[in-house]
């Protein structure tokens, strides 16, 4: 059923398995103990950073596959994406998996985009089981988007730190936290040009998606234990609050994955990267829903859709935010 931009699911697919992986800095953060893949070698035994990310993604996906109950079987399709050019981390990770694969690019919004697509396919009966994954690696992203790792430069206070991490979730009919609704976001650009201030570039898209969600469903923020954004960081979170207040929405239970993953040790404005929201979703949010520590959660991953070329050509940064509504099994039984 469709309410505005919101797709309300009929059968409420369950997150039957999920896994998260992180690098050294992520393991040292407050969510470090939640990661399934906990390796302190940020090269993950590979020769290049690109293959290191791919290896992390592969191990995370295989760990999630390993947790799928035997009666469900292997996924019919995997939606996955990352930040590397041509989505190579995901594509190379899928070389060793004999499963249909659809690569996605939603920048840091990829986890919500992939989970939303997987949920729609399962809910519509087009797949009995579908997986969603996203990953990023600090070193691979840094050398692709910014400067070489050894280059001496000072970061601005608005800059965010790309997470070395991955998250994978398998959706099917079964036991686990449920997906109630999904919403694909509209691209919004309010004229932010600074590629070191992506939280500010993405906050309007997050506000747009949330306002449309609350308008379409009649829900209020208070109905949720938490509203998680992907990686707005401190600056973007602040701006999201201001934008929503102008729209008459008070968001008091907002949390940002970019601030959760490193906690108080967050460099600059916080964390970012496709793997940031993916690792927090699969290592923190879904387990909390499964344990009944939270009942209803909005998960909203935000992406900045510029490239190095468009930034150099003086274009402003468009943002997008996709939303997935999760609930615990108990909350589903009550509704």
């Amino acid at each position, binding site marked *: 059923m469709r309410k505005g931009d919101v797709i309300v699911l009929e059968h409420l697919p369950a997150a039957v398995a999920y896994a998260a992986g992180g690098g050294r800095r992520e393991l040292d953060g407050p969510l470090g103990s939640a990661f399934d893949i906990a390796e302190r070698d940020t090269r993950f035994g590979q*020769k*290049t950073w690109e293959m290191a990310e791919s290896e992390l993604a592969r191990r995370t996906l295989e760990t999630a596959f390993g947790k799928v109950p035997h009666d469900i079987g292997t996924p019919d399709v995997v939606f996955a994406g990352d930040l590397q050019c041509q989505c190579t981390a995901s594509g190379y990770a899928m070389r060793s998996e004999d499963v249909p694969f659809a690569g996605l690019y939603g920048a840091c919004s990829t986890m919500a985009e992939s989970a939303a697509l997987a949920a729609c396919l399962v809910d519509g009966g087009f797949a009995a089981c579908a997986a969603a994954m996203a990953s990023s690696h600090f070193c691979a992203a840094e*050398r692709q988007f910014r*400067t*070489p*790792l*050894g*280059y*001496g*430069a*000072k*970061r*601005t*206070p*608005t800059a965010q730190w790309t997470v070395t991490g991955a998250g994978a979730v398998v959706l099917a009919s079964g036991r686990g936290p449920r997906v109630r609704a999904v919403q694909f976001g509209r691209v*919004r650009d*309010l*004229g*932010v040009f600074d590629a070191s*201030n992506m939280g*500010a570039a993405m906050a*309007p898209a997050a*506000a*747009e998606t949330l*306002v449309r969600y609350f308008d379409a469903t009649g829900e209020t923020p208070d109905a949720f234990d938490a509203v998680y954004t992907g990686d707005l960081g*401190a*600056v973007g979170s*602040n*701006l999201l609050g*201001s*934008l929503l207040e*102008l*729209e008459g929405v008070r968001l008091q239970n907002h949390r940002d994955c970019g601030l959760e993953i490193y906690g108080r040790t967050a460099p600059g*404005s916080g964390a970012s990267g496709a793997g940031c929201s993916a690792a927090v979703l699969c290592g923190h949010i879904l387990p909390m829903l499964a344990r009944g520590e939270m009942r209803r959660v909005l998960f909203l991953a935000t992406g900045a859709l510029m490239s190095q070329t468009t930034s150099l050509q003086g274009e402003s940064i468009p943002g997008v935010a996709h939303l997935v509504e999760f609930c615990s099994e108990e909350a589903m039984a009550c509704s």
Partner: protein
Amino acid sequence: MKTTKEEYAVLCKQALPHSPVAKDCAWAFCVGGAICALGQILLDAYGALGFEKADAGTLTSATLVALSAVATALGWYQKLASKAGAGTLVPITGFANAVVSPAIEFKREGLITGTGAKMFTIAGPVIVYGMLASTVWGVARHFLWG
């Protein structure tokens, strides 16, 4: 959403965290000053070893470049620069770091297509416009003072 670009620009300005200017300047002054002091010590040492002033200057620059290259390869220069900012950027050691860091970074893409092609991605514009400025100045000087 009703917010316009102009209104959002005001919100962004209000939300922008400020750099700790005094602390950044202190770091830049101390580290940049220390690098320059090291340069002076090297210059005096080469002079004491009997080198002519011009040769001692060239050897000093070469030594600082070599030290910066080693520090970059060991990952130390970037760590220092993350605090020192302009203090490590402005001296000749910053230029060496800008050449050495991409040379190391892109070696997996091949000696020619990686290291060779990418070595001057950061320093290249400095060289191009440095050469251009010196040429313009040389021509102007020729016509003005003969």
